[in-house]
């Protein structure tokens, strides 16, 4: 290993980019702004690559200076490189780079170009700090910083009132989680007398496994609260769907690929703590499993393309959290990586669609885009296949171990496997519903144009057109990664080298399962399980195909009779008829009426809203205390004094 990797450069370069654009971006041309921003990320990516290849067996630690060095408390600015943080840094910079390039094209018609890239670079700075930090306090710095940038970027379209509200909601909700993190941090310090991973993790590993809830369990649960806030897990997930009001590259980078997975990272990072607190681990698995299933069902009934992807993200992160919960940490990180590829691709593809349609986000108004956006179409298809976990796409190789571990792990069980497999089926269904509705069937725009009827749709300007190359190239690279990204982790079962697990093993050495727990299952069982999951995915796709691809001939017939607009409406009813007539109906009803409207909108969202409103009302009552009248103020003082005196004198006698 090289003696000095200068890890600090990795986050600092984007920071410099952010500063540059923040200070001079207003006066620079778009081109200059974009090259500074993209250049900074590219440099950072190369540095991360260098660090990745320089990595040895032992964790590599760089300490810069002492941050807080009081007698009773020590904290340093130090960075920590092990397989886990190296992989994370690569994902962040790599996907970040592609999304930056994409954004160069995507944002070119929007205002505030320099501001956007300034925030994006700043975000990468904080994200890399989070990932590379060598102690929990520095991680918290990054943790808060990414939240702040996320807030700034969600509210980027500041003229939209709802965008600003969504930003605030995201900030406050995640902050609730942040305080869980903060208290966990203080407790870690009081338990281990240090915040450095290099000291805390071995110390935790040397502690006995807590059979009843002890300090470790409390710490782990508090960390889980933090993770749930940042990673949009039940019940703190409400902010993420609203966060989709930000620009699409932001959704791709922050709310799909990187920031929201920080919760998974922190659990994986603290794996040594978690395996010694089985109860906390069980809670992690439960939260993850429930979130995965719950969010997927909501995804079925959404119509906004980005909201579907948002719920899908919540669900997929639930998968990762569940994987952590069954102590399959390397599988969780594996899925984190492949998810970063295909979810970023999905978002960017969606962005391309939205871009092509001039801002339209409702999938019911889309269709037949396959002819207009061929490159987007093919890359989107790959992403859909990847998220539906069909072999040989990356999602398959990362999701399969999670399902398998959920079953065989000593912390798992058949319940988690069932949750996982059901989610897998629903996932492939809703993602292909989105896919077919968007790209197949008849183009509604085309119908309107060819029939000569003027459709009052000011948002659509003309025929949909493919995005410029600067936007499609990142799509294709991501498509390649979504296809092949999983091949690094082909397990031995499929004649693969299992490189991934071997590579990450050092990072989770302290969290390794005790050998006596390792239950051996024969290959046949594993193959059966794998086949089952493939089957479920295929079934989901088939169902979606059945429901949403029978439409083309109906629509074509309607178009022939020059009654485009009418049949469009009719057609929509037709879809609904099919919808109802099929066995999906109960699920849909339950999902829409109970889970989404009942739970999501009313109970969870409502209770947060209610809490906020109640707090404000309380505030109103409190401020009425300040009547402005001196005598009543004096009355308060006297009242307080009397209470105080009676308390003190009463205590004394």
């Amino acid at each position, binding site marked *: 290993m090289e003696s000095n990797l200068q890890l600090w450069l990795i986050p600092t370069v984007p920071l410099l980019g952010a500063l540059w654009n923040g200070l001079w971006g207003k006066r620079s041309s778009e081109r200059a702004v974009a090259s500074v921003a993209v250049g900074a990320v590219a440099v950072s990516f190369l540095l991360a690559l260098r660090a990745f290849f320089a990595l040895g067996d032992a964790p590599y630690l760089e300490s810069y200076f002492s941050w807080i060095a009081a007698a009773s408390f020590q904290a340093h600015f130090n960075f920590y490189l092990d397989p886990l943080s190296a992989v994370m840094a690569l994902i962040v910079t790599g996907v970040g780079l592609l999304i930056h390039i994409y954004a160069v094209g995507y944002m070119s018609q929007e205002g505030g170009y320099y501001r956007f890239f300034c925030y994006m670079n700043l975000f990468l700075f904080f994200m890399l700090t989070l990932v590379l930090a060598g102690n929990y306090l520095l991680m918290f710095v990054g943790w808060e910083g990414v939240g702040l940038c996320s807030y700034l970027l969600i509210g980027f379209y500041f003229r939209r009132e709802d965008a600003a509200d969504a930003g605030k909601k995201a900030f406050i909700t995640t902050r609730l989680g942040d305080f869980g993190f903060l208290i966990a941090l203080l407790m870690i310090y009081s338990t281990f007398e240090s915040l450095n991973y290099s000291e805390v993790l071995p110390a935790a590993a040397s502690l006995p496994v807590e059979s009843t809830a002890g300090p470790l369990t409390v710490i782990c649960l508090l960390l889980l609260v933090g993770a749930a806030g940042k990673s949009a897990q039940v019940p703190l997930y409400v902010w993420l769907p609203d966060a989709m009001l930000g620009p699409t590259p932001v959704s791709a980078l922050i709310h799909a690929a990187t920031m929201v997975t920080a919760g998974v990272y922190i659990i994986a990072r603290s794996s040594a703590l978690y395996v010694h607190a089985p109860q906390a681990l069980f809670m992690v698995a439960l939260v993850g499993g429930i979130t995965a299933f719950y969010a997927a069902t909501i995804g079925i009934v959404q119509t906004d393309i980005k909201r579907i992807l948002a719920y899908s993200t919540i669900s997929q992160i639930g998968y990762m959290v569940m994987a952590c919960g069954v102590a399959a940490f390397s599988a969780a990180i594996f899925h984190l990586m492949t998810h970063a590829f295909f979810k970023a691709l999905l978002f960017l593809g969606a962005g391309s669609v939205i871009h092509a349609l001039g801002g339209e986000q409702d999938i019911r108004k889309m269709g037949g885009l396959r002819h207009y956006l061929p490159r987007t179409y093919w890359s989107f298809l790959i992403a859909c296949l990847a998220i539906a976990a069909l072999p040989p796409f990356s999602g398959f190789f990362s999701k399969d171990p999670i399902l398998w571990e959920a079953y065989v792990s000593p912390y798992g069980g058949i319940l988690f496997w069932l949750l996982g497999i059901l989610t897998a089926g629903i996932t492939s269904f809703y993602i292909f519903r989105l896919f077919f509705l968007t790209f197949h069937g008849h183009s509604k725009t085309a119908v309107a144009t060819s029939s000569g009827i003027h459709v009052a749709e000011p948002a659509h300007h003309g025929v949909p057109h493919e995005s410029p190359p600067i936007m499609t190239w990142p799509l294709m690279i991501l498509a390649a990664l979504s296809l092949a990204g999983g091949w690094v982790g082909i397990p031995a079962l499929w004649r693969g080298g299992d490189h991934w697990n071997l590579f990450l093993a050092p990072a989770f050495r302290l969290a390794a399962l005790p050998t006596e727990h390792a239950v051996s299952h024969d290959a046949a069982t594993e193959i059966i399980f794998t086949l089952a999951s493939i089957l479920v995915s295929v079934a989901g796709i088939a169902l979606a195909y059945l429901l949403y691809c029978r439409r083309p001939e109906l629509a074509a017939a309607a178009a022939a009779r020059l009654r485009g607009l009418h049949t469009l409406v009719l057609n929509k009813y037709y879809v609904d008829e099919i919808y109802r007539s099929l066995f999906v109906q109960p699920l849909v009803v339950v999902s829409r009426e109970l889970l989404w409207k009942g739970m999501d909108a009313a109970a969870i969202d409502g209770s947060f809203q209610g809490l906020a409103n109640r707090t404000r009302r309380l505030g109103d009552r409190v*401020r*009425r205390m*300040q*009547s*402005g*009248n*001196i*005598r009543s103020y*004096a*009355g308060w003082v*006297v009242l307080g004094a009397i209470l105080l005196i009676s308390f003190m004198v009463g205590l004394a006698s």
Partner: protein
Amino acid sequence: MVPLSYYLILSAILFGLGTAGFLFKRNIVTIFMSVELMLNAVNLTFVALSYHFRQLDGQIFVFFVMVVAAAEAAVGLAIIIAVFRNRGSLNVDQMDLMKF
């Protein structure tokens, strides 16, 4: 001789009267006089205790308190005049431009 507790009770009563005056009077000047009454009640306590302990400290404190009270009176009068000039009234209940 009069026991110490008599003085202390008297000063407590005076202090209470001052407090009550602050709470129930409406004229700013009267309210201010109530504050002065409170300060002088404390002075009485100091003198009584000082006499009781046979040490001079308490008496000296009274000097200081008196000087402080005088300075307070000067500042207070200045502020009251400024308020009167702005508002044309010395009723405290009307002094509520800022609230909530």
